């Protein structure tokens, strides 16, 4: 892609204003307090939402949001679209389930094994693929994820993977003080997911605003100049890939702890389609955008699933948003806000609105 096309891509909208606002320390104080407040308040959502069904939906929404965040991070910082993101969602789920059914380890050990296995896989896959151009990269990840999808249902592998039926998980001990019953209770699970999401948001925020994040964006903008500046372009992107994979695998592990079931559907490409739709709805550049997109998508999905218009919803979302809103809904809202309030600063690029999520 030429850099012109790059700039116009709906997915590659760079975090346009993630710059250090001069003298921003005091200004950054109050948004931080507000976020902390929101975080604490969020822990009590189950007290407000009484329906287990809608609570479960919110849980799913956050998990999808986490996947969207991982995908969006890689998209906006590195210009790489992980069509095959589901391999880092279903993959660790299966690894966990396999460890659980075949070995007599504690749940914590199972989680560790799943994470470790996934990260090793991510490192290997990333090492091979991260040098590819965007479209081949996307297709390579798609190929691997679909291979995995096919592999888990191969009849010869049934004893290990459970074939089409998947694997049922039986948590024999508690994890982080929660029993299997706790984890499958929507209101209690929400707390786990909420905290995990907050943690992931903090991590991604820190990375994006760090020197590492800057280097990633520099590589994305101009790889050649980066090399001519003495900075290698391979390892940073590999690290970003592994980080994104790690976030996705966290989502996968959370899902499987909650559902106690690993099935081939976790590796479907349609799920990847949902993730990408979420990213587009929320806007890939911001941090809250993808997460909010995931929640919005899940809620919308539920509405449409009830009426049987599942695919239509995703399809229309994808088409509509790519065609009409290059910056996603978040970007659209931000742009609208900017127009309404006028330019607060004289230098149009010290855009504080983008500096914090």
């Amino acid at each position: 892609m030429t850099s012109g096309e790059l700039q116009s891509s709906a997915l590659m909208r760079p975090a346009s204003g993630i710059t250090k606002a001069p003298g921003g320390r005091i200004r950054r104080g109050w948004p931080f307090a507000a976020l902390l407040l929101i975080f604490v308040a969020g822990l009590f959502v189950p007290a407000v939402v009484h329906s287990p069904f809608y609570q479960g939906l919110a849980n799913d929404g956050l998990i999808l949001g986490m996947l969207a965040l991982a995908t969006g991070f890689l998209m906006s910082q590195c210009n790489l679209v992980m069509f095959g993101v589901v391999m880092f969602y279903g993959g660790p789920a299966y690894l966990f389930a396999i460890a659980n059914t075949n070995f007599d380890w504690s749940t914590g050990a199972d989680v560790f094994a799943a994470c470790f296995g996934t990260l090793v896989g991510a490192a290997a896959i990333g090492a091979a693929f991260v040098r590819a151009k965007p479209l081949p990269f996307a297709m390579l990840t798609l190929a691997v994820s679909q291979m995995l999808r096919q592999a888990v249902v191969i009849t010869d592998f049934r004893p290990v993977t459970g074939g089409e039926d998947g694997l049922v998980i039986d948590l024999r001990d508690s994890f982080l003080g929660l029993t299997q019953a706790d984890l499958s209770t929507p209101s209690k699970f929400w707390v786990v997911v909420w905290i995990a999401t907050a943690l992931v948001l903090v991590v991604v925020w820190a990375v994006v605003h760090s020197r590492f994040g800057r280097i990633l964006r520099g590589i994305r903008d101009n790889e050649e100049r980066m090399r001519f500046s003495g900075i290698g372009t391979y390892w940073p992107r590999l690290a970003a890939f592994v980080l994104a994979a790690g976030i996705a695998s966290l989502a996968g592990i959370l899902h499987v702890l909650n559902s106690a079931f690993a099935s081939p559907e976790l590796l479907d490409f349609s799920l990847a389609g949902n993730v990408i739709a979420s990213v587009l709805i929320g806007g890939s550049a911001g941090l809250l955008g993808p997460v909010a997109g995931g929640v919005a998508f899940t809620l919308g999905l539920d509405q449409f699933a009830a009426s049987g218009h599942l695919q239509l919803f995703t399809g229309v979302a994808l088409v509509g948003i790519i065609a009409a809103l290059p910056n996603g809904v978040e970007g659209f809202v931000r742009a609208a806000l900017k127009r309404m309030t006028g330019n607060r600063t004289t230098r149009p690029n010290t855009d504080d609105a983008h500096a914090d999520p």
Partner: protein
Amino acid sequence: MQLAFVQIANALALASLLTILASGLALIYGLRDVMNFGHGALYMLGAYIGYSAAAITNFWVALLVTPVAMAAIGFALEYLVFRPLHRRSPIDLALLTFGLSLIIGQAIVYIYGGTARTIDAPAALSGSIRLLGAPYPLYRLFLIVFGIGACLLLAACLRWTRSGMYIRAVSLHPDVARMMGVNTDRLSLLVVCLSTATAGAAGVLAGPYLSIDPGMGQAILISCLIIVVVGGVGSIGGAVAASVLYGFIQVVGSVVFPAAAVLAPYVLLIVVLMWRPQGLGGGRI
């Protein structure tokens, strides 16, 4: 010996279908740099339109009428999607076409429901003939012949017609071709309509051979993508070679190593993208 022959014939039949389908995808990819993720859905749409047409008339009429209908859809696609959004990145368009495929898929479910259908092969082709002592479905032989014929026809058009030359030029060097005065807009319309028409034809041809169901689009999409990428950007010859390769891998693989045969095409894709990213044909039609 007999078995081998049957397997080879099966591989060629599958390859024929895939070639017709993949050429359309390769044309668009070469000309517009767009990976049309909706190609599978268009194939499916063609199959269903063909089904309806065949139900009213017969197979041959369906085979004639469907591509025309699909070309009209291609016309709409070019003017409503590809042209207005031609400045967007390839990934955006890939995703957008994927979104379209979901919409088309849903529309088909609305109209036809979810049960599988078939198109009956025309009476002339519904039997089997004896080849090397074993009976072999006549329809599959027809597929093979049709596939070869379509390839030759396409190759001839690209080689010897003015438009064909333009297509090759624009696929190789779009900017230069444009500067030389080639009307890329009209060419683009031609290519897109050709692509959707061939997808439709492939759909009708698949009717008697595979079954028609709402999942057939996605199922064949991945195969097509693999073939086009392996064949090389914009290379029809490459797509043909890749289809044959794919057909063989599928069929032979299912005999030799049935458990993991289904993984073979993906391995093929990965190997090619890693070692020769420009594909077998490498940029030449």
